[in-house]
């Protein structure tokens, strides 16, 4: 019986260790994901938290500074709009009207500082539109 208990303890230890890893993983790496309107609803509580926001690139809002590659644009979701600045490689799929997900912080000055830009990729298995 002692033998079996040793194995049981071992198994539970492994289980707990993995559980701990998962818990820490969720603590550190899970990001909230909002639409533009939802982000606005959060108000000041969301300032400087790393979040993801989804919206459509508004027509006429895209400005790209040639040097330094800073990209400024606005994303909308029907009602609200959000100003975004982003510095870095712009994926090929980014364009006016495209649905994008930006990840970064919403600053108290009302501008969203994005460090990651993810336009939706073309789907492979798409039923006929």
């Amino acid at each position, binding site marked *: 019986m002692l*033998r*079996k208990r*040793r*194995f049981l303890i*071992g*198994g539970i230890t*492994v*289980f707990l260790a*993995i559980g701990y*890893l*998962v818990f*820490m*993983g*969720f603590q*550190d*790496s*899970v*990001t*909230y*994901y*909002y639409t533009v309107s939802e982000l606005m609803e959060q108000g000041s509580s969301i300032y400087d938290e790393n979040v*993801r926001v989804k919206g459509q690139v508004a027509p006429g809002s895209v400005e790209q500074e*040639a*040097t*330094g*590659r800073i990209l400024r644009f606005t994303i909308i979701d029907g009602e609200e709009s959000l100003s975004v600045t982003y510095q*870095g*490689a*712009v994926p*090929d*799929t980014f364009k006016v009207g495209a649905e994008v997900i930006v990840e970064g912080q919403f600053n108290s000055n009302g501008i969203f500082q994005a460090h990651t830009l*993810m336009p*939706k*990729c*073309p*789907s*492979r*298995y*798409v*039923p*006929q539109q």
Partner: protein
Amino acid sequence: MANIGYIALLLALVASMYAAIVFVLGRRHPALIHSARNSLLAVCGLVSISVAVLLYALLTHNFQIEYVASHTSHDLSLAYLLSALWAGNDGSLLVWAWLLSIFAAVAVFRKRDIGGELVSYASSIVMVTQAFFLILLLSVSNPFQQLSFVPADGRGLNPLLENPAMILHPPLLLAGYVGFTIPFAFAIAALLTGKLSNEWLIAIRRWTLLAWLLLGVGNLIGAWWAYVVLGWGGYWGWDPIENAGLMPWLVATAFLHSIMMQRRRGMLKIWNMLLIILTFNLAIFGTFLTRSGILSSVHTFSESALGPFFLAFIGATLFGSLGLLYYRSKELKGEAEMESLVSRESTFLLNNLLLVGAAFVIFLGTVFPAIFEAVRGARISVGPPFFNQVSGPIFLALILLVGICTLIGWQRASIKKLIRNFLWPLGAALILVIVLLFLGVREWHALIAFPVCGFVFFTIFYKWFQETRTRQQMRAENYLKAFWGLVVTNRPRYGGYIVHIAIILIAIGVIGSSFYEVEKEAVLKPGESMTVKNYTLTYEGMNHYEAQSKSVVTATLSIYNYGELVGKLTPEKHFHWSYEQAVTEVAIRTTLREDLYVILIGWDEDNTTAFKVLVNPLVIWIWIGGGVFVLGGLIAFWPDSSVYAHPSGQ
């Protein structure tokens, strides 16, 4: 024409249902079994006809068929016309059904004389699965759906898919998924017939190995494609679709190991059943995930009507098989007890726990956003940091386990013998730590991870050395001949060793490129240079040309390594006529040590061009490891001329 394809599928459905029923009802009547077998063969023939019809439609540009119009165009080359067969949802489901019918035919005809009842029940289960996929194809996922008009040209293939890897990746994955149906069917057959000895295990060992190999290679090719084509500098994004292919593979790995436990010591019978049930359901789940929009993913596939069908199938299969397992659980008692915590059995058990744990963790991360949204209403996203942080340590522990397991004997191992076996590899690993410290490596991940990999390498080589020497002494052969003889007469075991080496190679590549990647962006005018690590890249200029289906912009950079000119790289952007987005073609310079990876980001009218350059260390070892993986798998798979009896001793 399309109607022939559809009718063939309809007839196949009838034949598969007939076979499913008659295999069970007529199991004691040879004549009925014979007719069921013929029916199964007919299914294979009919689905093949269907596939041939679709292929013909693709090759002759029959754009009235919706599938052909959506995935091909007049200017598509032959290879991609053929591979369009699995480029889309409906086609790939057709390939699933086709592969299943072929595998079923092979399985049934190889087992002509072994254990009649077991094979009959297993065949029935396979036919039920076959029927499910045929029902899907005939209702919501019809590849022969026709348009009310004939378009002048098709929409063409997504240029991201125009790559040799994309010809291999889907069919390999599909074959892997499909392959797990056979072992699952035999497991359920064993539960149904009560023939719970090792008979079913022996029947399915090589099927499991084959499916596992195909799925593994399919995943690796997918990673390679992501690296070389998608051009973001990485090879694995922990996308739900990617995870869908990884989870069944991890559980299947656990299954392959625990089969050995059952065959050697009669242990873990219930666990084995659970594992194969889980593997099969994960494979179906993977097939389903790739087609439903239920999880937000970078590849956002739209919601389709397939979801409910798949969920119903998985639900029925899962609950049915688990219920059956519970019913038979008393008859599945183990024949031996776990004796010592320090034994090969323990390491196998731990290996299983870690592998299933890893699969579980990945599953959790993949579905958590959907669950969270359903429960809390807020949406969250779980990205690579979570998966890397959580699965990294688990995989490292698994690798360490490979080394420990290689040196530990079955049953109780004497501690003295253990320490003696460990001394050389451990010593070598410690020397490695010192060498790394000497080379200036200070990050603790590297100082732990690389020596662990080194340790495992050394344990395997040490083991080979020991066994070769024993054989050489026994037979007075030279070392080389002795080693070759060992490999040939112990194919499963040595194949396994080689596969383990492959995993270490892949691990080394992953560790190097994950922790030591260097990234830099720069904006250059022609003539200007940028420096990344020991490389200097000088922008020579931009060029532009037109090809058959696209317009191409190229930028040329001269590469200097430690001041010496080593070559040129030309990253490009392709603008396809039939496709709205630009496609970036990265330029990579690969050495054994690292990859220099250049992405062309954009340019202004005055030729000021933006580049992103990455230095990814050790990436090539992932692909080399992939090759070794295939080699090891093939060796393990190669049939013995003699019947697979006792695996040779310690």
